[in-house]
């Protein structure tokens, strides 16, 4: 279980996260919901060990070291992490080696999953935005991570690709891969996760199981916050 205890984070002296407590069990899928600027991406950055919290503690699952935690982690951020002058295949090869051994079949497999197999020898620069996003998802899944951080992974995908990604996530959920999903499509996030967490101005202000009854009160709260912010 991954655990955040009392995390505080400042960025450029701005308090971005306020005493965050979060437990992320192995295989658990969490929907992270909140208005723009709530601190969702920042929270993912803390979990990805990209920024160090100013106070508080990260407890890695079964006392792993940071390096071992990184190996278990797969990340989809708004930035694709791709090298645009390399081909899709070369990109995946690089990332696969970064995490361990080369396995060509695995590369082909994920490429097929995201429907990019037929263009795998083409330079990424020639890809459309949605194709890059799909390749970025393939890159994140390549090393079979146990924990996934997904920051708006549906961004830029057409409805068909959205459906594909959704099915991939449901599949992984069954196989025991946990993920934290940041999405502004709350209904979809609700569908894909076990638990939802609502963030507002750097704090977690509500949590709940993603049940059918739970949805409307939770979303009502979320809508209120967004309205309050924009007024």
């Amino acid at each position, binding site marked *: 279980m991954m655990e955040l205890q009392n995390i505080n984070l400042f960025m450029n*002296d701005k308090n971005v996260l306020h005493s965050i407590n979060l437990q992320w069990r192995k295989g658990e899928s969490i929907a992270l919901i909140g208005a723009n600027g709530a601190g969702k991406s920042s929270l993912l950055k803390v979990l990805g060990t990209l920024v160090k919290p100013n106070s508080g503690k990260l407890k890695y699952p079964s006392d792993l070291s940071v390096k071992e935690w990184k190996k278990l982690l797969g990340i989809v951020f708004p930035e694709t992490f791709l090298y645009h002058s390399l081909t899709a295949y070369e990109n995946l090869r690089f990332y696969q080696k970064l995490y361990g051994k080369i396995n060509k079949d695995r590369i082909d497999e994920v490429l097929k999953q995201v429907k990019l197999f037929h263009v795998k020898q083409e330079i990424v620069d020639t890809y459309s935005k949605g194709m890059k996003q799909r390749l970025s998802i393939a890159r994140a899944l390549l090393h079979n991570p146990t924990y996934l951080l997904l920051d708006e992974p549906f961004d830029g995908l057409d409805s068909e690709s959205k459906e594909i990604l959704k099915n991939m996530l449901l599949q992984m959920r069954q196989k025991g891969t946990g993920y934290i999903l940041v999405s502004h499509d709350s209904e979809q996030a609700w569908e894909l996760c076990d638990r939802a967490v609502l963030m507002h101005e750097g704090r977690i202000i509500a949590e709940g199981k993603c049940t059918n009854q739970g949805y409307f009160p939770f979303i009502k709260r979320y809508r209120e916050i967004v309205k309050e912010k924009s007024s």
Partner: protein
Amino acid sequence: MMQKYLNPTKLFLTFATGILMVIQLYMSLFYAPTEKYMGHIQRIMYFHVPSAFVAFAAFTIVFIAGIMYLYTKNKKWDALAVSSAEIGVLFTTVVLVTGSLWARPVWNAWWVWDDPRLVTALILWFIYIAYLLIRTSVAGDERRRKFAAVFGIVGFIDVPLVYFSVKWWRTIHPKVIDEQGVHMPAEMAQTLFFSIFAFLVLFITLLLYRYVLESQKENVNELRNKYL
């Protein structure tokens, strides 16, 4: 706790520095005898050499504070490093200017490349100017503080390399000056040592003021971000 002693310490140091500097001025201008060959111009030494000591002490502190900052991640060390670097650059400038003023009549040139100490001082000046330039954009970013700390450490390690390389560089070519050129009467030596002492106290005072200012800047920043 510390706050309670801060103002008395500042006051005491300011007074002590004032008195020491007056004595230092008197000693270097009147007490020390006039040098036989160089004349009054030699008195520059009582400012030049102590400034060099201060600069060196200052950069040593940048080095140590840099290591401590990387080790503890405590912003206090970073504040100490930047305060010390600024004073170091200031006194290196004094070293360079007084060195030039002295060299003009004595070596018949504003600048000579043959003195490893002078050249090292110049390179040092550039290194720590670069350090301060890095610092101008630091504003609350930990990564940049870290970078500055690393640069301060590397720069300091580079100093002996610069010194010895310049020394070897010049010794392969004919040498203009004799290292042991000045034979010093007792009064001169006393004045010189006293000057070094006075300048070091001056340095500590300046450093304290500058450091307190830097910490207060930090505090103001933090408060502003908390409440505004």
